[in-house]
Each structure stands twice: as structure tokens, then as C-alpha cells.
């Protein structure tokens, strides 16, 4: 089974099946509201693919993906607020929330976001560039393991605090009340469905990119760096560069997810990008299986679905359930759901190797 999916034909079959479910079955079977929810979950899944790459393959436990998710989301939100203001009061006018905050002049750094092209470029470039810079700063100095985890977590905390203090970025409330997405009315159900299709399409592309990265020589190198970073240097590679690539890719994925999240959900605020949400991104990946390709996707979808379903039925029990999920899955099933599938498939001689920096 898993052998089959490793072949070229198998890969295509897998993608075709996924496309059939996402583009065919889901829209037919789900109500508009549920489809919207699924679109939101797909955004989390896109983030998860990146974390799987950086953490599962590269050993970098990035507890701060909220930062990149948030960057993508806020950049998109800025454009949508600008478009909204322009539609209501003409070009160059101040978005509604700024008026409330007593800001009467459009801040200079907002102006370019009136342009859709600029916005999309910014979403693709700014978070990635930030990840590259931060990655170089950190990895060149060989900050890794727990240090990196704690640092990235503090980064998420600091970023959220910084945003809360910026009234011109919506402060604690964040940005919400969007009406148009690149000129399309957001309250039109057809356009909402279009957003879902975009999310699904992007997920497939992101998975394909991650697949290629994993199967390439780079993918092997990344594992080598995870297991024995110093050794890689003695072979003539700059380990920091190798890590930065995976980290930046994860950042880019998160940013794209954030950018789609905003029109889908209709709000982005610091509460969605701080320390706790960032750890929640990790939960899905851990549950699905950090080291596998599809595991993080499945895990992220499962956790998001469980959160919604359980909290509908047992509001406060969800906290317990969530806590227990972390405990049980990680303690008993470090390979996540993916490892159960593999283990039950066939009995095979498992090499037991002290897991390096998994």
C-alpha cells in the first residue's frame, strides 16, 4: 500500500483521489456553513504541512508559526480593509477601524496595500524574507533544539503583543469586517465556495511541493542535518542554509494559509497568532505524524474538526480532551496516526535507534 504511493503512478493516484474528495465530494455533501469551516481547516492543514517539513524532517520545533500565519493574514487583511475603504469613501480613505481609533490620516505603510499585486507579492515575500533573516541569525549561530523551540515561542508571544499595541493595525481587536475579496463580494455564497476551492487547491500544491522536497536529495540532507548537524558541516555543507530553506518554506506555507484564512473566516486578531494558537498548530502535526507527509494534514483536519464538534457538545470538556490528546498521542504514539497505519500494515523489523532530535 504505502509502497504503491511511493511510486510515480501511486503519487498521481493519491493526488487524483484527494482532488476528487476536495473538489467533488465535499462541495456536494456539505452545507455552505460546513464548507466554510472546512476551508478554515484546510488553512490549518497548509500550516501543518510546513511544520511537518521543518519539525518532522528538519528537527526544528517551530513553536512560532503563528508569526508567519499572522503576517500572511494581516497583509491580506490590510488589502481587504483598503479595498473596503476605497469602495465606501473613495481612494486613499481611512479604513473604518482607524476612524474609531482616532486615526484620521492613512499611515504611509498602508497605502501600497491598495494594490492587489503588491499585496500578493508582500504575502509571498515578507514572511519568507523574515524567516530567512531570522533563520540565518539563529541557525548560523547554531541555536537549536530546545533553545530554538523556546525562542520561536517567545517570538510568537512578542509578535502578538506588538500587534496589540498597534492601533493602526487594529490592536487587540485585530482586523475584521471585510466585504470584498479582490473585487468579489464576500457574502455571496458562490464566492465563499470559490474561497474553499482556492484553499483546497493551495493545499494540494503545497503538499506536492513538500513531497518533492522530501524525495529530493535535499530531503535526505535535511534529515542528516537533523540527526548530526555538526557532521554535515565537515562534509562541506553549510548546515544553516539547509535548515533555513525548510524553515522559510514552512513560513511561506503558513503565510499563504494566513492569507486565505482571512477572507474565509472574516477576522484576524492577535488572539489567533500568539503562543497558544501556535502550539495548537503543532498539535495537529503531532497527532497526524510529524515525520510523514500526509500525517500533518490529516492531523490538523482531525484536531480542528474535533475541536468544533466536541466544543459544540461538551464545551468545557474540550479542554480536557485537548490536553489528553496531547498527552496520549505524544507519549504513546510519537509517530502519530501515520505510524499506526504503518505498524498495522505489516510486521517488519523496526530498527530501534535512539531518536536524535525528533
Amino acid at each position: 500500500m504505502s509502497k504503491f504511493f511511493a511510486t510515480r503512478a501511486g503519487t498521481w493516484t493519491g493526488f487524483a483521489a484527494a482532488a476528487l474528495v476536495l473538489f467533488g465530494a465535499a462541495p456536494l455533501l456539505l452545507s455552505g456553513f460546513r464548507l466554510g469551516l472546512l476551508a478554515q481547516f484546510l488553512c490549518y492543514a497548509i500550516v501543518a504541512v510546513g511544520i511537518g517539513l521543518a519539525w518532522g524532517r528538519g528537527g526544528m520545533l517551530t513553536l512560532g508559526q503563528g508569526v508567519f500565519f499572522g503576517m500572511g493574514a494581516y497583509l491580506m487583511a490590510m488589502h481587504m480593509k483598503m479595498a473596503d475603504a476605497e469602495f465606501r469613501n473613495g481612494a486613499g480613505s481611512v479604513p473604518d477601524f482607524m476612524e474609531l481609533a482616532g486615526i484620521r490620516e492613512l499611515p504611509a505603510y498602508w497605502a501600497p496595500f491598495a494594490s492587489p499585486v503588491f499585496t500578493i507579492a508582500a504575502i509571498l515575500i515578507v514572511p519568507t524574507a523574515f524567516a530567512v533573516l531570522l533563520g540565518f541569525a539563529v541557525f548560523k549561530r547554531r541555536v537549536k533544539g530546545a533553545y530554538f523551540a523556546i525562542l520561536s515561542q517567545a517570538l510568537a508571544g512578542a509578535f502578538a503583543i506588538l500587534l496589540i499595541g498597534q492601533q493602526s493595525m487594529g490592536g487587540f481587536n485585530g482586523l475584521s469586517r471585510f466585504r470584498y475579496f479582490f473585487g468579489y463580494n464576500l457574502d455571496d455564497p458562490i464566492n465563499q465556495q470559490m474561497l474553499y476551492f482556492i484553499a483546497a487547491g493551495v493545499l494540494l500544491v503545497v503538499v506536492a511541493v513538500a513531497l518533492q522536497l522530501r524525495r529530493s536529495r535535499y530531503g535526505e540532507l535535511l534529515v542528516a542535518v537533523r540527526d548530526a548537524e555538526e557532521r554535515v558541516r565537515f562534509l562541506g555543507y553549510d548546515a544553516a542554509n539547509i535548515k533555513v530553506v525548510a524553515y522559510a518554506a514552512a513560513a511561506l506555507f503558513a503565510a499563504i494559509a494566513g492569507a486565505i484564512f482571512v477572507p474565509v473566516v472574516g477576522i484576524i486578531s492577535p488572539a489567533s497568532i500568539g503562543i497558544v494558537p501556535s502550539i495548537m498548530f503543532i498539535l495537529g502535526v503531532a497527532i497526524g505524524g510529524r515525520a510523514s507527509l500526509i500525517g500533518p494534514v490529516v492531523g490538523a483536519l482531525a484536531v480542528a474538526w474535533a475541536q468544533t464538534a466536541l466544543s459544540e457538545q461538551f464545551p468545557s470538556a474540550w479542554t480536557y480532551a485537548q490536553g489528553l490528546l496531547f498527552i496520549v498521542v505524544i507519549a504513546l504514539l510519537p509517530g502519530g496516526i501515520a505510524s499506526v497505519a504503518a505498524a498495522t500494515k505489516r510486521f517488519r523489523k523496526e530498527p530501534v535507534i535512539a531518536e536524535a532530535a525528533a
Partner: protein
Amino acid sequence: AVTALALTAGCGSRAGEETEAAKSCVDTSGDTIKVGALNSLSGTMSISETTVRDAIYLAVEEINAAGGVQGKQIEIVAEDGASEPTVFAEKAEKLIREDCVAAVFGGWTSASRKAMLPVFEDNDSLLYYPVQYEGLEASENIFYTGATTNQQIIPALDYLAETGVKSLYLVGSDYVFPRTANAIINAYAADKGIEILGEDYAQLGSVEFSTIVNQVSASGADAVFNTLNGDSNVAFFREYANVGLTAEEMPVMSVSIAEEEVGGIGVENIEGQLAAWNYYQTVESPENTTFVEAFKAEYGAERVTSDPMEAAYNSVYLWAATAEKAASFAVEDIQASADGVSFASPEGTVVIDGDNHHVTKTARIGEISADGLLYTVWESEGAIEPDPFLEGYDWAADLQVTE
């Protein structure tokens, strides 16, 4: 993916075109009518919001016991906002589109309200929001049953000015309500010749107040205006007491500390300090006696009632009364009939203003006493008309926005 995108993009409506608002699915055929209760039952805000939920349930039970609304029993669909704006938005949409509720009661933080607002507008449904807030908002789809700024902050300032306060230090949590409140205070102070000696914000949940209290102390202000929320108040007042500042020397006027919070701060740290609200458990009126008794009977004698709880309780009655008057549960009928609907509430009679969807409220300054309750030391003459955009105050001209 690309083809799918092209396909759907072809048919979606563009900016400026009218879109068909989603049809309401509220079912009025049976002998029950569904409403939503959307409060944070988990996360940091659950502290406060569970009390609001209790008040909503109490009101619903009372109304049901008295025969319901238009002869229909109210059925609550409860959801957890989980202290997260995005979850509030998601759950609001679920209540409207999947559960088909006639109205939703809940929300606390302004962030949650801002997150829900577009959902209620896009789906043309109703939210009853029960907490005092920063004003400058009036949505067709929201009824605001807590105080707006001219019913809480401005009376508090008037009271301080009356008692001879000439300088103020502003301390608040870093989010929209304190920031807006302080903008108003600054404008007010500029007009009335009160000096603002400092303005500090702490992160929500912050417990390190040494620096801020040192600065407050060094400023020598006549009083402190406190818009801190939640746990931060505990740390703030302890530090305040510990450096030797007292209510006599430098009183603190708080607008987010109600009966619930006093226990956690410790009465010994806060006795004699002031608060501004529309309702205290100690308000003397027959309606309040009934309310407090009913509440304690339902939830236990040790529980206290507070302003947001009372506003939430009122909101259910106001909705029911409006529906009766409109003889309909349809959103447009409720909106059309709301003006002038009143309720003899624990704080005094409240009346809905059909223009801005706020209610009239009596402002009260309370003093915290040794028993942990707040007692009214000053109250406005009658209920104050809501003025969310402060149109009636010349000094606030710069703050005004056009909705």
C-alpha cells in the same frame, strides 16, 4: 484547481453588485423558539462570561415559566466562544445558519463583538450584547444593553471633577476599550482643565505593576482612572496598597471591577476605592430584590450579581418584549418595533432607543465596602439617553466618527 477557480469566479457577484442575503431559516411553526447563548465557557474570559450565561438562563427560565414569548417556550442553544474572536465568529455563524436561532445573546470583549458584527450583518440576524463598551458603534443587527461611554465614563469623570480632582493618571489594559476610554478622558480633561499626568497600558493578564505604580506614585496625581481588566487588577491594587497609596490620598476610579472581581483582589487592598457602573447588587429597588433573590435561589447564596449580568438578564426580557410588540420573530419586524420598548429592570427602567439600538441607563458611582459589595455614593438623575457617538458633547468633536 485553476479551472475550478475560473469556473466559480465567473458567477460570483462583484463589488457593488447586490447580493442575495442568505434567507433566514428561523422556524416559528412549533411551540418553541430557539435562541443562542454564546459565551466563553473556556479560556481566560470564562471567568466573567459564565456569570453572564447564568443570567441569560435565569431570564429565559422566568419568561418560560410565565408563558414564554408569543406563547412559545424559549429554547437555548448554547455555544462556547472559547475566549477567541475567531471562535465567536464561527459559532455565531453556526447558530444562525445551522441552528436557525431567532437571536443570539452573549459576547463580552469588544474584540468578540467586532468579530461577530459582520456575521450578524451578512446573515441579517440579531445579537444582544450585554457589556459596557467603548461606544462609537451602532449596528442595525446588534442591541447594546450595557453602557456606552456617556452612561459610564463621562458620569465617572463628572463625579471626579465635582469632588475636586484636578489631575489624573490613566492606567489601562492594552486593548480597544481602555484606549478609547482614555481618548475620551483626554478630550474631556482638555476641556475641563484637568491635567493628565500619565497614561500607561499593560498587556491583558499582566501581573507586573511595579513600574506603573511607581510612576503613578511619583506623579502625585489627585486620582487614578483605571480601565484594567481581569487578573491585572489584583496585581495592580496589591502593589498600590503595598507602596502605601490609599483611597483617601489618591482614589482609584475603576470601570471594569464589579462584585465578582472584588473577592480575588482582596477587600483589604481595595476598600474605599470607587467604581462606575449602572448596577450594583446593593441597588435598592423591588425589581432588584426579586432579581437577586431569584439568582441566589437558582445558583447559590454565595453568588453575587453584577452589572454585565444584569444587562444580560435585561437583554432577554427586552428581546421578548420587542417580539411581543412586533408579534413576530422576524429580524426586520424586531428592528422596526424596538424603539421605545422598555423593561422595569433591576437598575431601573431601561428603554430601547430605536435609532442606535442602545438603551437608556442610570449611571452610578459605587464605593467598595468591607463586605466586598459596592454601594452607590452617587447616581444620575434618572436614566441617561445613550449617545454612542458622543454627539451631544462639543469637546468630543474630534473623536466622532461617521458610521
